[in-house]
């Protein structure tokens, strides 16, 4: 891990073994998904949606890269960009809008890359990998396999296994699984899941969430009446069951 260029403050340069620091400016549901996925790059993450806190984090914590939900927190581009005195912090912007003008202006104001909702998890790993190299000359170590309770996920081989059994998940199913697991213990409504995974303007069949949950449960061997992973919360949506070993992973 090389230091961001232009950083001069003593003791602030990361050591060779230090994890890259990623600042996440997103609401909780999407932010948790990004935080969990960034485990595949061994990032240290902090999430905020507060301007003051964001300013402090940029100055004191000096993130190597930032992830900003452009649709909800657009002004934060300038707050993070103002950290330019510490060298360039690449910004990855997220948007649900198919709006060329918005994107071109985001690029102009300092966004280095844009991830469009709906996205798949590999985007959250691959694009920062390229930006960290371009901005810092740093090669982020990729961690293909992480554990989610009894589930082992291999993002490179696109494989999720339970006790050695390959579940053959599609990229969207894998994203759905991460999103639920990243927010373990919390019920996510259909609208939440739709907005986070598919985005507002992507046309989809109305029952797409239920259909994907059903398929995911089948693949997980999860009985809907007595689920081990995904519970139905009547009137509220779906909830990934909080499990001891998972609580720390999804923190």
């Amino acid at each position: 891990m090389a230091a961001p260029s232009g950083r001069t403050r003593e003791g602030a340069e990361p050591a060779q073994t230090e994890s890259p620091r990623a600042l996440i400016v997103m609401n909780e549901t999407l932010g948790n998904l990004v935080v969990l996925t960034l485990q595949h790059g061994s990032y240290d993450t902090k999430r905020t949606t507060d301007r003051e806190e964001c300013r402090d984090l940029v100055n004191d914590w000096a993130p190597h890269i930032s992830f900003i939900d452009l649709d909800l927190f657009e002004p934060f581009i300038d707050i993070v960009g103002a950290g330019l005195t510490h060298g360039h912090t690449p910004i990855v912007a997220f948007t649900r809008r198919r709006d060329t003008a918005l994107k071109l202006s985001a690029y102009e104001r300092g966004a280095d890359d844009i991830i469009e909702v709906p996205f798949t998890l590999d985007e959250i790993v691959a694009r920062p990998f390229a930006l960290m190299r371009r901005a810092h000359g740093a090669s982020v170590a990729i961690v293909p396999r992480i554990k989610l309770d009894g589930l082992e996920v291999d993002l490179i081989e696109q494989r999720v296994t339970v006790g050695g059994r390959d579940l053959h998940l599609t990229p969207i199913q894998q994203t759905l699984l991460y999103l639920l697991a990243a927010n373990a213990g919390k019920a996510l409504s259909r609208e939440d899941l739709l907005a986070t995974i598919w985005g507002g303007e992507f046309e989809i069949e109305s029952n797409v969430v239920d259909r994907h949950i059903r398929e995911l449960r089948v693949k997980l061997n999860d009985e809907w009446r007595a689920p081990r992973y995904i519970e139905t919360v009547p009137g509220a949506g779906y909830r990934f069951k909080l499990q001891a070993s998972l609580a720390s992973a999804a923190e």
Partner: protein
Amino acid sequence: MKKNQLLGPARVLIVVDQPLANLVALTLDHGKYVTHIARDVTSAEAELETWRPHLLLVDLDADDADGLGLIGQRVASKRVPTIVFTVRGDLKTKLAAFDRGADDIITVPFVPEELVARTLALMRRSYGDGVAFIPVINVAGLEVDLLNQQVKVGKLRPELTAMEQALLYLLASNPGQTLGREEILDALWGADYVAGSNVVDRHVRNLRLKLKDDWRNPRFIGTVAGKGYRFLATP
């Protein structure tokens, strides 16, 4: 680093299989580009020498499997900015592409708007002022506005969704050719849509309604029974 300015339209070499290549070339009408489509890696290498493109677009999933080798090629000792295309979810290919120096990646399926934004951003990064953005283009006699996502039909300007626009561009960029439902599904929706889904037919129906295209006597989109759809040549 001194940025080389563009004098005329930027030359873009497209190393992508059909029918996607035609969709890419049509979509690039939204910028000041001239495009060539190379059939395979060998002819792409020849074009790099003789035509000296400013931008290279390479599909890593094309039949010709050696696309990775084209990334970061030099023309007159300058690296050619390169955007690669790959199917979604494939982290291994994406990391390999970035590792070899790809400047950006577009995940297939994509909508025209994303291709336009990423190419313009890269051209600006590579060539200073970059390429002029052309929001309104003529697609087979139809005036299409990318910024407002509208198409001009007589006196009406119906709004197109991103997917309807992508479908229109795909069909119109391959006039006279029958595209099968599966082919359209693969190009625009990708593998996550189950076979047998009627999503293509539904979108064709909506698009026809907006274009005031009568399916019995179409001006734009013809049905090829048992096969798929065909865009009729410009009237």
